[in-house]
C-alpha cells in the first residue's frame, strides 16, 4: 500500500509533466507558424525579385493588416470554442456602407466612427446571443451575413456609395513613419488582443470556456455571456477593417470584402488555433494572416491563375490543420 502523500505527489508530478508538454507544444506551434512565414519569404526572395521590394511589401503588409484585423477578432470566437463567424465580410462591408452614408450626410467624423462601431457591437452581440441560446455558430452567422448583405443591397440599391468627404482621408491613406495606418491599427490591435487574452479575467474566461465549457460553467463562468462577448468583439474588429477600407477609397461597397471571411479563417487555422477551442494566440493568428497575404501576393506576382491560387490556399489550410491536429494529439497521449 502506498501512502496518501505519495499518491498526491505522483498526481502533482503528472500535472507538472502535462503542463510542460503543453508548453513545449505551444512553443513548437509558434515556431512552425513563424518558420512557415520565414520560408515563404525566403522562397519569394529567391524566386521573385520584385517580391521583397518596398512598394510590393507595403501591399502585402496592407492586405495582411485587413485580413489580420478581421482574423484577430474572430480568434476570440475560435478560442471560446464557437468555431468561426461567416458574417464578418458582410459586417465589414456593411460598416463601410454605413460610414460612407454618414460621411455623405456631413456627420462629424468621431460621431460617425462611434455610431458604426456601436452598431457593429450590437449586431455581433445579437449573434452571440443566438449562439448562447444553443444555435450553431456557422448557421447563425450564415443567416445574419445573408441578412446584412441583403439589407445593405436594399439600402444602397446595389450601388457604390461615394461620399466625397475628405475628413477621413488621413485615416485611409496616411503613413505615419512610412507605414500605412491600417498596419499600425493591426499591430496595435494585435498587442491589445494578446494582453486581453493573457492578462485579463475576461481573456482567461474565454480560454477556460473554450477548453472545457462544462468545467467553466460549474466554476461560475457563464459560457453564454462569453459567447455574446466574443461575437461582439469579432464584429467590432470586422467593423474597424470596414472603416479603414471605406476611408481609404472614400466609398462604401458591398462586395469590398468578398472572400475575406475565408481568408481570415485561413489565417486562424494556419496560425494553429485549436478548433475545439481553448488553445491559440493572437500573435499566431497575426502570423497566419501575414502568411496568407504573402502567399496570395507571391502567387499573383508569379502569375498563377485564380483557380490555382485558390487551390493552394485550400491545401495550405488542410496541411496546417492536419499537422497541428496531429501534434496536439501526440502532445496529449505520449
Amino acid at each position, binding site marked *: 500500500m502506498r501512502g496518501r502523500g505519495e499518491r498526491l505527489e505522483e498526481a502533482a508530478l503528472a500535472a507538472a509533466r502535462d503542463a510542460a508538454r503543453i508548453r513545449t507544444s505551444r512553443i513548437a506551434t509558434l515556431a512552425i507558424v513563424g518558420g512557415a512565414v520565414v520560408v515563404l519569404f525566403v522562397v519569394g526572395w529567391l524566386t521573385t525579385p520584385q517580391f521583397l521590394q518596398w512598394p510590393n511589401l507595403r501591399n502585402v503588409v496592407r492586405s495582411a493588416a485587413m485580413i489580420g484585423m478581421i482574423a484577430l477578432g474572430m480568434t476570440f470566437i475560435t478560442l471560446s470554442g464557437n468555431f468561426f463567424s461567416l458574417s464578418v465580410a458582410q459586417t465589414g462591408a456593411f460598416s463601410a456602407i454605413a460610414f460612407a452614408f454618414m460621411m455623405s450626410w456631413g456627420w462629424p467624423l468621431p460621431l460617425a466612427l462611434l455610431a458604426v462601431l456601436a452598431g457593429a457591437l450590437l449586431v455581433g452581440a445579437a449573434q452571440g446571443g443566438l449562439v448562447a441560446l444553443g444555435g450553431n455558430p456557422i448557421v*447563425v452567422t450564415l*443567416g445574419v451575413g445573408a441578412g446584412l448583405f441583403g*439589407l445593405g443591397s436594399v439600402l444602397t440599391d446595389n450601388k457604390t456609395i461615394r461620399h466625397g468627404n475628405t475628413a477621413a482621408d488621413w485615416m485611409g491613406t496616411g503613413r505615419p513613419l512610412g507605414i500605412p495606418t491600417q498596419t499600425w491599427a493591426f499591430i496595435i490591435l494585435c498587442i491589445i488582443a494578446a494582453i486581453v487574452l493573457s492578462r485579463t479575467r475576461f481573456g482567461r474566461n474565454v480560454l477556460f470556456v473554450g477548453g472545457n465549457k462544462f468545467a467553466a460553467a460549474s466554476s461560475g463562468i457563464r459560457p453564454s455571456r462569453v459567447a455574446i462577448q466574443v461575437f461582439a468583439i469579432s464584429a467590432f474588429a470586422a467593423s474597424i477593417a470596414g472603416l479603414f477600407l471605406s476611408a481609404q477609397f472614400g466609398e462604401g461597397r458591398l462586395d469590398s470584402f468578398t472572400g475575406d471571411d475565408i481568408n481570415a479563417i485561413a489565417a486562424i487555422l494556419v496560425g494553429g488555433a485549436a478548433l475545439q477551442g481553448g488553445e491559440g494566440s493572437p500573435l499566431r493568428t497575426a502570423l497566419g494572416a501575414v502568411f496568407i497575404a504573402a502567399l496570395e501576393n507571391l502567387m499573383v506576382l508569379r502569375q498563377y491563375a485564380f*483557380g490555382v491560387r485558390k487551390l493552394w*490556399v485550400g491545401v495550405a489550410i488542410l496541411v496546417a*490543420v492536419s499537422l497541428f491536429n496531429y501534434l496536439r494529439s501526440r502532445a496529449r497521449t505520449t
Partner: protein
Amino acid sequence: MKALKRATPITWARLAVFVGVFLAFALIDGRFATVNNVYTIFEGFAWLGLGAMAVGITIIAGEFDLSVGSAAAVAGILSVKFIGGLGLLPTVILVGLIGMAFGAMQGWLIYRLRIASLVFTLGSLIALRGLAYMISNERTVVMQDLEVAKAVKRQLFIFSPFSLTTIAIFVVIGLFLRYHRYGREVFAVGGGRNEAIAAGVPLARPLITAFALSGTCAALTGALSTIKSGSASPFGFEQLLLPAVTAALIGGVSLFGGKGTAPGIAVGALTIRFLNSGLSLRGSPYYVITLATGTLLIVVVLLELVLDRPELRDRIRLRRLRRAMARETGAG
C-alpha cells in the same frame, strides 16, 4: 397516419409556414398558382432539394459539410466535359459516382484524422472551387449539343423529365436513410454519438455513408442543373449553401443532429422555392431574396431553439419553481 399523431407543435408550425407561404403568394399574385409557375418552382426544387439533402444528411450525422457548392460546381464542369463522348445517362451516373467516391474519401479522412468536419470541408470548399476554375480554364463551359438540354426540361404538366429524375433520386435516398441499416446508423451517431458507439455502431461507417451521400447529392445537383441549362461556370453554386441550410432546417433537420426526414427536407426546399418564385414574380432583385432567406434562417433557428428544446422550457420552469420556493421560505 402514425406520423401525424406523433407530430409535435413545431412540425405543425412548419407545415403551416409551408402552406401559408404558398397561399399568401397565390392570393397576392394571380400568376403564382398557375401550372406554368408551379412547373418553374419544381425545376428549381430539383436544384435546391438535392442541395438541401446534401447538407442535411451531414447535419443529421452531427457533422457539417460546407463544400457542397464547390463540389456541385466541379461536377457541373465535369458533366459538360463528359456528355459529348458518353451521352446523357452515363454522364449523370459517372459524375454521381465520382461525387460519391470523393464524399466517401472525405468522410473517411474526417474519421481518421479526427478533424472537425467543419474545418475539413472548409478546406475542400476552397480547394474544390480552385479545381473548378482550373479544369474550366476560368471560363464558362458550354455543352455542344443543346438538344439534350431541351429534352430534359420538356414540360409535362407541372413536371419535366429533369424534375421527375431529381424527385426519384430524392425518394431513393430518403428510403435508404429511413429503412436501410446504414442509413439508420447515420441518425444514431448524430443523435447520441457516444451511446451509438457504446451500442456497437462503428463510427467510420455512418460517417462515410453520410459524406458519400452528401457528395453524391452535391454532384448530382451540379450535373443535372448543368445539363438542363446547357452550361457550367466555375463560380456556379456559390450561393447554394444558404438556401440549402435554410431548407434543411425548415424541413425539420435538427442542428443538434439525429433528427430529420427526406419528406421534411422536401417541404423545406419547396417553402424556399415558393418564397423565391413569389418574390421574383413581383420583380424583386436577387438580393431581396437573399435578405428574405437569411431572415427566414434566423427565424427558424430561433424557433428551434425556443420551441423544440424541452430542456430550455424545463430550465424556465425550474427557475419559476425555485423562485416560488424562495418566496415560501422567505414567508415562513
